[in-house]
């Protein structure tokens, strides 16, 4: 595995991005990102959620503008202020969530916004002819008169692809195209993509499923925390190496502490099965014990049932089967509030959505989730002055940088919002702390503070369930590690003898010795 440099790449570049930087309040989504996509190749952009892939593609497609940096398309410098300018330059994007009108036909959807007209009327005949030609030449089977609502997901995706081709795109961006497809459809999609490549199109393929990336891409660019890590040829890299590149090893390492064994079970999961949004089991018969004073790390590629597991423990999602015991008592039928009162702390994966009231002041956010308890409440009444005192204490103890307790949380940076959430949960002294991706999207300084606090929680005897996509973080902090794969516990590992590489191969279901046998 060796990085490809610009001088080595012989073919002309279809798209080149230099030093693209995009900042959002409190977060740098893209930090001097470079990307070179050669003409006629399938180029995968991989990285964990929050690595900056989508932002980069939105910039290339004109949905957002970069704060700094240059873009070259076909050798000429461009600056897009809207997608229609990108389309004019020959760039098309197939979104993860399809943008189709269900009650219109395939043909109508394809021409929508770019209708061929004859004397002011839509020229159906020429559109029909054009569509059939496209379909034939790219092997994209579609019946132009079918209603979109009658189509399968894979067919809808083909409509999206044709829509882009119809507008004359030479470069196609596909944003996580396989996330909605079943394996058979993935095969078909890959077949279509190879067909497009053979006809001279360039494809930029966003994904985080490593097997798929290796199967389809010629070249792979890895992004991590908004920066380009490297660009490699897919024939020279293994899934395990990619996983390591994605999560990185240059980050400040969370140091470990001596572990004392404690066998008092705080939370027990007994053959827990949970249904996902689609009704199929997202978590299947998971048995797990989390002990006092222990950090249990859960590793897994996004979408393997971790989120559903957390929601089930918290009571946001019902158990399909099995039982949950907190200190030996079944809590499966308890509502969320009772579970929280019994000592479940929760640092949500998406803190803005699940953890904060962005338009409320800091002190009210500190009450959230604890509003039924002292010092925040006395009987049915809120104790505002005590709540404000408690909020100032949390601001001090957890180093939340805010002008004061009355500041609206929306004004705080991502890292400070996260410190506020962690501070709130920890200062309530829960028995059990669920921390889902606690360091996602925050800067390195805040990250170290979060790690300190998790270690402190463990010292104080809390049981901590830590979910993370950062393998170094898991290995460094956890006392025990389990890997979730397709809703099941695929492995239990001892962090002291595990490497990110080994963990990565368990996560992707690749062979244990790290040698890739995935095609």
């Amino acid at each position, binding site marked *: 595995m060796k990085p490809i440099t610009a001088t080595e790449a012989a073919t002309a570049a279809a798209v080149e991005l230099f030093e693209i930087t995009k900042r959002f*309040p409190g977060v740098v989504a893209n930090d001097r990102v470079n990307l070179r996509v050669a003409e006629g190749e399938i180029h995968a952009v991989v990285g964990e959620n929050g690595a900056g892939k989508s932002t980069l593609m939105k910039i290339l497609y004109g949905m957002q503008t970069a704060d700094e940096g240059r873009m070259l398309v076909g050798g000429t410098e461009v600056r897009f202020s809207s997608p229609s300018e990108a389309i004019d330059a020959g760039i098309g994007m197939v979104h993860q969530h399809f943008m189709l009108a269900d009650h219109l036909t395939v043909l109508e959807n394809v021409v929508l916004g770019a209708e061929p007209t004859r004397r002011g009327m839509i020229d159906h005949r020429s559109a029909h002819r054009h569509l059939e030609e496209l379909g034939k030449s790219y092997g994209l089977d579609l019946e132009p008169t079918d209603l979109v609502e009658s189509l399968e997901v894979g067919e809808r995706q083909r409509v999206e692809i044709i829509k882009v081709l119809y507008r004359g795109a030479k470069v196609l961006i596909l944003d996580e195209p396989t996330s909605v497809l079943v394996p058979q459809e993935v095969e078909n999609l890959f077949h279509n993509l190879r067909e497009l490549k053979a006809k001279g199109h360039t494809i930029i393929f966003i994904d985080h499923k490593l097997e798929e990336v290796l199967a389809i891409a010629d070249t792979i660019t890895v992004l991590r925390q908004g920066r380009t890590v490297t660009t490699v040829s897919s024939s020279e890299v293994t899934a395990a190496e990619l996983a390591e590149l994605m999560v990185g090893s240059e980050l400040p390492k969370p140091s470990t502490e001596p572990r004392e064994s404690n066998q008092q079970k705080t939370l027990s999961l007994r053959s827990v099965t949970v249904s996902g949004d689609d009704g199929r089991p997202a978590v299947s018969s998971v048995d797990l014990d989390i002990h006092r004073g222990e950090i249990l790390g859960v590793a897994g590629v996004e979408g393997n049932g971790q989120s559903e597991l957390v929601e089930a423990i*918290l009571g*946001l999602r019902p158990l399909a089967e099995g039982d949950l015991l907190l200190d030996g008592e079944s809590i499966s039928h308890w*509502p*969320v*509030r*009772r*579970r*929280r*009162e019994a000592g479940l702390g*929760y640092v*949500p994966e998406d803190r803005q*959505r*699940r*953890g*904060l*009231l*962005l*338009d*409320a002041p800091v002190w*009210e956010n500190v*009450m*959230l*989730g*604890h*509003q*039924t308890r002292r010092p925040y*409440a006395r009987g*049915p*009444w*809120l104790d*505002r002055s005590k709540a404000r005192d408690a909020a*100032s204490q949390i*601001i*001090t*103890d*957890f*180093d*939340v*940088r*805010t*002008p*004061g307790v009355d*500041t*609206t949380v*929306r*004004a*705080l*940076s991502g890292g*400070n919002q996260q410190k506020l959430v962690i501070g709130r949960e920890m200062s309530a002294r829960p028995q059990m702390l669920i921390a889902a991706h606690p360091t996602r999207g925050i800067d390195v300084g805040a990250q170290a503070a979060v790690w*300190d606090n998790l270690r402190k929680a463990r010292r104080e005897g809390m049981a901590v369930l830590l979910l993370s996509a950062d393998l170094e973080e898991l290995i460094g902090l956890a006392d025990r590690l389990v890997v979730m794969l397709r809703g099941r516990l695929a492995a239990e590992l001892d962090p002291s003898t595990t490497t990110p590489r080994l963990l990565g191969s368990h996560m992707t279901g690749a062979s244990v010795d790290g040698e890739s046998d995935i095609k």
Partner: protein
Amino acid sequence: MSIRRVALALAAPVCAFAFSIGLSSLVLMAFGTNPMDAWTEMLSYGTRLETFVETGNRATPLYLAGIAVAIGFRMNLFNIGVEGQYVLAALLAASAGAAVDLPPILHVILIMVVAMTVGSAFAGIAGYLKVSRGVHEVISTIMLNAVALAAVGFLLRSWLLDKNDTTLNMMTPEIPPSGQFPHLNSLVETFTREITRGRQLWGFMLVALAVGVLFYAFLNRTRAGFDLRATGLNPFAAEASGVDPAATVVRTMLLSGAVAGLIGLPEVLGQAHRYDLGFTRGLGFTGIAVALVGRNHPGGIAVAALLFGWLDSSAPILDVVGDAPREIVSILQGVVVLAAVVAYEVVNRIRRVAEARDAATAMQHPTETTDRSVS
């Protein structure tokens, strides 16, 4: 900081009102009227004691309507059904009040309880439909408005008519004096001159004030109020914090309906002492506008209700002196609502930017309170 806050909070409604006056003046000019004449006329008529009494009487039900709507708005529930809830509640409460004979205070309390129960139950239907069947409350409350108004017509004609009435004005029997709410004229007159022209300031205004205070205390001082506000701000975070979303929807609708039930009572208890065909309708819809202009805040709603009440009670002079059509006031009210909504959004953005700047400064220079004391 706090001065800036207050200034920003006041800037929005003041700008909105000034803009509305300006636009309405243009409309008046377009119709060949001198706007200054019209406004002067309204101002001189509108500052008389009798007009103030009328303003209070009109503002009281509007205030209750505004609160009823705001309770829903505070958790992103659109109770469009306040209209149906209060008309039905007023009819049944007036009938119940006429049917019994109780000691004075108890009698009034009974009528209020009946009104609140009817309003609450009727609004509860929409809440139940939302949580059990996923019916959006806007749809169900609009439909229920039609049901309520039809039910009022049917009930009044079939069962609740005053048998002794000979006037052909369909009405319920009169509520005996023990069930009537005393007026506040003597109280006001200790500070002012005598109120003439038979005007009476309805005592129910005090109940409305109490409802406003209770609403404020509930929202800001109780756990249940916090749950409701949290759900309105972010239903997902509220759920994770232990708020039961379904129960909160039903509870909020019941509460909103209970306040809606009171809207008709100032008129029923203070003046008509019965439900008849002259009963004021449409307050439920005006209440939506009042809540919007008042930013769903009990104090803001009071100002908005007084503004709307004053405009309504001083407009009739325009017809008398013939300077301008009184409908100009409706235009003015409509423009105020739109302008206020826009102005609030603008102020909101200014405030957000300012706060983000303060927070950014705090990040670079940690202040006393944010000093790091734990490693």
